[in-house]
């Protein structure tokens, strides 16, 4: 599912040139190196986006857009958080509101946190943050009308949380607040990635006196009260006397702008993760993508935000020695893949799925995306950063090889004459869902011709991004193959790939993201009203996922998921993973220090510095 809107890439040749010029460079693992010394403070980071695209109106209880997470990092603090820097260090959990990252007790079932003292909400609330404010955030997640969009990370995990509470007043039995500085979570089952779940923005403290007025999904988005270094401009004008008196905070208009200014109640001494160089952050909506990059080039803006640079812009920067260091490309921790439906012949046959993997020209697909600056060829399911590179850079179970593809096809029941080319009717006229925008349209001929070599003939159906997703997410549609799928982490743990994408429980009639239907049981198939083709063995990896999920020790946990990745790729073969994309930013010379936030996959607002005279007026 697309957290970051990918408007990237148009002309393959232009981008290939860019890639060559950049030599696949970028900022992987750190900042630009523009300044080794501490940059100056002040100025305003000015940026623009063609559209906010928030999934829940910027209400943290349900919002899951990466761009929103990047903004929350400046606005909200959670018990645990990240360093908001690039690379592996940016994916490591750190204490934020909590004094330390605790070890679970009670066989992994209890987590106890102590809060740092003297951390206050921003205006107009202006009071100390207590453990009850964190508990209240969970009570909101647990409320049915909030339809919290990643509530599944807590329901059935924390005792008493099932998402069915009628109002946020309902206490949760598994969350205790013995005093204002202590919060205890009691779990139903050991959950190795629980710490990461406490770093999601939905769990940031929420003041009940404001949020109680906003009871529907997305309602609180225009009233978000700061607990971090910045607040929404105009927060101090918010009246909290009564619900009727509350008017949306002026600094956020979903169709125009989001402006953040310093929170006067923030105490830098309590925060080691954020440097907060800039005095403010201005995010404006600019519907003209070219205009955004022209403004960055002219210095009217300091950088882009969420919109990928058009090929012409990348070419201009990469071919100009003075500008090359203003391009920043970092790992997006996201896998793009072709998915094959196991209940739709011929993809019920593992040999066909393996043949498709061998036959796919991933180099050509990468070129369609723009070459090495746009990403790296994916060879397995979870991106290397999420698996701490446990599988190694050389791991590639299906190198591009037409002969091996045909060898696999020969073993398939759909190749009756055993010539390595599918000759069964099931291989003809297969619907393939795709998006109707670049680079997917550029990739389509590559996929079609790769499949043709092994006798699979597809009929591409190009749809708008959301329509493409909802089409393949409806199980009864039984879409045989799709090119539009991608998946990014919600937090830097492999569970956010395997737990969501391959477990039996994750298969739902609509909105389903387990597209191949891995772990589909006959009972589940019956419940969904679909048939498993006769003789088809669908492996169930749910026990493997549960086994990994119990593991709380980081290294063992990652190894467990890496093994599962390998198992899926070699013995189940649900996808053809083809790309781990990079996130590309262009900055103006006014940016004296650029930092990427690996956790959100966007710019790190709190650790980027500028040298401009802009003000927030």
């Amino acid at each position, binding site marked *: 599912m697309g957290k970051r809107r990918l408007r990237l890439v148009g002309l393959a040749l232009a981008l290939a040139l860019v890639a060559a010029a950049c030599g696949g460079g970028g900022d992987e693992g750190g900042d630009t190196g523009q300044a080794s010394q501490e940059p100056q403070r002040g100025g305003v980071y000015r940026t623009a986006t063609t559209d906010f695209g928030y999934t829940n109106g910027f209400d943290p209880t*349900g919002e899951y857009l990466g761009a929103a997470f990047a903004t929350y990092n400046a606005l909200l603090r959670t018990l645990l958080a990240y360093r908001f820097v690039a690379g592996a260090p940016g994916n490591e959990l750190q204490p934020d509101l909590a004094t330390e990252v605790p070890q679970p007790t009670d066989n992994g079932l209890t987590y106890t946190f102590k809060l740092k003292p003297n951390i206050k909400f921003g205006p107009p609330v202006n009071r100390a943050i207590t453990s009850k404010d964190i508990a209240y955030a969970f009570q909101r997640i647990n409320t049915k009308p909030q339809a919290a969009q990643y509530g599944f990370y807590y329901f059935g995990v924390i005792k008493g949380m099932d*998402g069915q509470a009628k109002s946020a007043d309902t206490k949760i039995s598994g969350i205790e607040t013995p005093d204002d500085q202590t919060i205890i979570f009691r779990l139903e089952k050991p959950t190795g990635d629980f710490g990461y779940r406490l770093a999601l923005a939905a769990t940031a403290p929420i003041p009940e006196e404001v949020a109680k007025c906003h009871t529907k999904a997305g309602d609180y988005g*225009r009233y978000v009260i700061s607990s971090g270094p910045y607040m929404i401009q105009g927060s101090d004008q918010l009246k909290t006397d009564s619900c009727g008196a509350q008017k949306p905070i002026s600094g956020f208009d979903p169709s125009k702008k989001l402006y953040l200014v310093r929170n006067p109640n923030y105490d830098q001494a309590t925060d080691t993760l954020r440097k907060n160089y800039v005095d403010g952050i201005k995010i404006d909506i600019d519907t*003209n993508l070219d205009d955004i990059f022209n403004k960055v080039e*002219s210095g009217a803006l300091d950088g882009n935000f969420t919109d990928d640079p058009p090929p012409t812009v990348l070419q201009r920067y990469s071919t100009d020695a003075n500008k090359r260091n203003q391009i920043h490309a970092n790992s997006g921790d996201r896998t793009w893949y072709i998915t094959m439906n196991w209940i739709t012949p011929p993809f019920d046959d593992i040999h066909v799925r393996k043949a498709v993997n061998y036959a796919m020209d991933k180099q050509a697909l990468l070129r369609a995306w723009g070459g090495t600056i746009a990403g790296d060829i994916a060879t397995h399911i979870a991106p290397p950063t999420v698996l701490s590179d446990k599988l190694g850079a050389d791991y590639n179970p299906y190198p591009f090889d037409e002969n091996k593809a045909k060898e696999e096809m020969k073993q398939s029941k759909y190749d009756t004459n055993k010539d390595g080319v599918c000759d069964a009717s099931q291989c003809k006229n297969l619907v393939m869902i795709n998006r109707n925008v670049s680079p997917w349209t550029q990739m389509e001929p590559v996929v079609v011709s790769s499949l043709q070599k092994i006798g699979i003939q597809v009929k591409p159906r190009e749809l708008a991004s*959301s329509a493409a997703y*909802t089409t393949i997410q409806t199980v009864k549609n039984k879409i045989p193959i799709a090119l539009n799928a991608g998946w990014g982490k919600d937090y830097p743990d492999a569970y956010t790939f395997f737990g969501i994408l391959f477990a039996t429980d994750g298969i739902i*009639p609509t*909105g389903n993201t387990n597209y191949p239907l891995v772990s589909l049981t006959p009972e589940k198939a019956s419940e969904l009203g679909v048939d498993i083709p006769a003789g088809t063995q669908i492996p169930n990896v749910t026990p493997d996922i549960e086994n990994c999920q119990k593991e709380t020790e980081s290294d063992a946990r990652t190894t467990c998921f890496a093994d599962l990745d390998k198992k899926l790729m070699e013995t189940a073969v649900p996808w053809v993973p083809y790309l781990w994309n990079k996130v590309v930013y262009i900055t103006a010379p006014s940016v004296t220090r650029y930092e990427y936030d690996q956790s959100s996959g966007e710019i790190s607002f709190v650790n980027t510095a500028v040298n401009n005279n802009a003000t927030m007026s």
Partner: protein
Amino acid sequence: MWRYIVRRLLWVVLVVLIITALTYTIFFVMPPTDPAVQFAGKNPTPEQIAEVRRQFGLDKPVWVQYGLFLKHIFTGDEYGWPGFGFSFVTRSAVRDQMVDRLPITIQLALGAALVWLCIGIPIGIVSAIKRRSLLDRATMLTALFFVSAPVFWLGLMALWLFWYKLGISPGTGYVPIGTSFGNWLSHMITPWVVLALLYAAFYARMTRGNLIETMGQDYIRTARVKGLPEWKVILKHGVRSSLTPVVTLIGLDLGALLGGAVITETVFNLQGVGQWAVNSVFQGDLPAVLAVVTIVALAVTLMNLIVDVVYAYLDPRVRYT
């Protein structure tokens, strides 16, 4: 005349009802995607989808939904009058967004119309009078160029030249007139001119053609024989009669521009109604789509009515029937 206007107003209501019903059918009964699924988030449970469907009001029978939509338009809803519900995307009142965006589009359309009339009609008149002269050929050639030039190209070129290269334009964006008149004007002038050039060229060619035809009529010859000065013959007898189709056209163009200046709005980052409508269609924000369709349908039909009334005034042969 009043009976005519009332009868036409009833037709306006009927047309708007038909258009909204069609839009409702297209987007709510046969939506490209299920909004409840689309907005329920990543990996939603059936309960979450059902809850979102309930909050969006999509759980009720279609005829009830449409009835409520009509009711809220006339009586208002929790966000005020007219009631357009709330946006699935921004989770805030559609009405507030409409109030915010419609004035921008109106300013763009009216300003551009003023510019194109001021450029197009005089050029058309001069060109018709100086028929086959160098001036006529030059202006008509220029008009042909602008009629053929796509607005997005003109807009991008204007920005590149006047903002990026020469620095005499403030670039894209909108500044409310109340903040600073000068700033407002400097932000609007380029989009006005860009949008107007296309229409001005068209209007110039149309005015020229009509005027040439009119000037060949018997009553023009009669006017001249009466001894009227040539300027009076042209302006009073020629232009007045030749402009009646132009009035029809401007009414329709203005109405259409309220929803159709998408490209100009997008290129110049003017967050008006047209650009909003297009984004809303792509995002599946059905209440916003419906609100824009309603307002634009109303604008176009009302402009038609106004045109017909003015037409009868300009051309004595037309009667209110």
